[in-house]
């Protein structure tokens, strides 16, 4: 995990069909698309609008409102560092600086080799084991620079 699928309009359409009958279907659909492809391709907006009987502007407005949804594919692994207060109290600032240096990217950027995308997150509910971060769908706590290096090395070796 993850290793996202390459965007495919047909597969996207069938995901839309799978969820469109739910009340308030737009968010569940966007989550399903992002889970499969790692992002929500802007080209799907007209299809979404038609399926849900909304205007394109409304659909676009929803996608852009939420921090979760990406409009371009991320790297093979997404690293999210917690920036919130409890993690601050345990020195997350040094950890963030270290991660940026080691990966050579800022938040919302992907490394040149396409391996890692760095993102910020505001609390993972792991505040008693701060500082915390996630790599793909796994949470890690009590992370220092050495452990971060180790985790990145392990993740980097995965396909």
């Amino acid at each position, binding site marked *: 995990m993850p290793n996202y699928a390459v965007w495919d309009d047909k597969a996207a359409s069938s995901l839309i069909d799978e969820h469109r009958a739910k009340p*308030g279907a737009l968010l569940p659909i966007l989550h399903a698309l992002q889970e499969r492809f790692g992002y929500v391709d802007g080209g799907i907006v007209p299809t979404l609008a038609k399926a849900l009987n909304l205007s394109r502007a409304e659909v676009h407005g929803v996608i852009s409102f939420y921090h979760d949804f990406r409009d371009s594919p991320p790297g093979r692994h997404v690293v999210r560092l917690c920036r919130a207060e409890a993690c601050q109290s345990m020195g997350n600032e040094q950890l963030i600086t270290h991660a940026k240096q080691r990966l050579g990217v800022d938040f919302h950027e992907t490394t040149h080799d396409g391996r890692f995308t760095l993102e910020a997150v505001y609390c993972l509910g792991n505040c008693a084991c701060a500082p915390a971060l996630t790599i793909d769908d796994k949470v890690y706590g009590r992370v220092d620079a050495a452990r971060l290096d180790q985790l990145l090395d392990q993740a980097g070796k995965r396909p």
Partner: protein
Amino acid sequence: MSVRVFVPGDSAALSVGADEVAERLAAEARARKLDLTIVRNGSRGLYWLEPLIEVQVDGARIAYGPVAVEDVASLFDANFVAGGAHKLRQGPTDEIPYLKKQQRLTFARCGITDPLSLDDYRAHGGYRGLTRALELAPDAIVKEVIDSGLRGRGGAGFPTGIKWRTVLATPADRKYIVCNADEGDSGTFSDRMIMEGDPFVLIEGMTIAGLAVGATEGYIYIRSEYPHAFRQMNRAIELAHRAGLLGSNLMGSGKAFELHTRLGAGAYICGEETSLLESLEGKRGQVRFKPPLPAIEGLFGKPTVINNVISLASVPIILDRGAEHYRDFGMGRSRGTLPIQLAGNIKQGGLVELAFGITLRQLIDEFGGGTASGRPFRAVQVGGPLGAYFPEKLLDTPLDYEAFAALKGMLGHGGVVVFDDSVDLALQARFAMEFCAIESCGKCTPCRIGSTRGVEVIDRIVAGTEIGKNLTVLDDLCETMIDGSLCALGGLTPFPVLSAVKHFPEDFDRSSPRAGRRSAA
């Protein structure tokens, strides 16, 4: 006979290696030809000891922790399966003072049972509340909740039963129960613990709420940062369904209640109840004007009870034991218990459920054991990113809604984040403004623009530019935000900022260096 060993499946425990420990335990047991049953329980909330494993010996549970994968072989060598001596042995779990001194009502089962075992749930008092509710008329259930004194644990502290009464009294063809599991406040994790560690209690609480107000459908809105809790809730709902505890014929009563889950999408503002409802409807999470109250016109325009996870999870025990039992805990108008989350720079972080009234000092010293870094304490932020920063001299404040309000702070969702003397309160104030700017829903100018201006003004102060003048600008800006914001994001962000200025003025006077303070980035 098989030995039962408990290894939490709670995501904080997983974050420090609980899965790897469970795998190694199973492998070692196989190699040693020992019959071991590994139960993935919730967390007891003693997070500094996680991964905390327990073994059942003669009816008692013996704790070992924090266990690393490398410790597993030596635990077997020490015969831990019979409770043997080991450097990680913490003794009988229930006797650990941190736990023993607590008053666990809402968290009575968390960490004890297998979260997905209905048999376990029932054996520990589960579904007694619903059984009783099924025998009561709706207004009698509502009365019980009113009499318990339960106030919303999501932050605003509004009496839960009063909210329910409004929904009950509003006729409609359809009503909803919505659970707010957005838990966005830094320093909080009690909602997550319940959903991962005792999901049936939330299901039971929501079902009782449905019976009380005449709603047959519910939604749990879970933040996307909690994928593990989301999966766990879905599994539990499925199990409850199969057992006839959800669906069209609750416990054979002919009454119905359906439950669905939805994921948030990384927006702090969606914890605000009307923004959450917009989001559930598939829209941008923009705050609605009130009135109408959600209790009158809520989800899809229908009367809606919206409550925090902990509020709803406290309902089963109130119905089971009666309003009085619950109300007898607490002080003043803060009745019952508060699941406090002790976090940040603290030696013993975790979940502490206690009657209202304990002081911050008792909490930080007696439970927390001081700072994690060993450096002197300097500040505590209570109530999440909109909560005030308090200095040492305010530590004798009791945890009570009114006591905190009197000091221009709030208890919020019960998060307590401790900082040592390396903290720079000017930078914390800057972060409060920055967070507001990032998370603003954009509806009101004071919140959207004011917070960005706030960051700039604090930057000038930190740079030492016309400090006095800029502090006045900051003060005015805060006043504008308090007066001109539609919701508490813009309206309360000034509280952490102003409390930092008031209680830690030396951090805003950049002319003199202060011992211990980090240099500004």
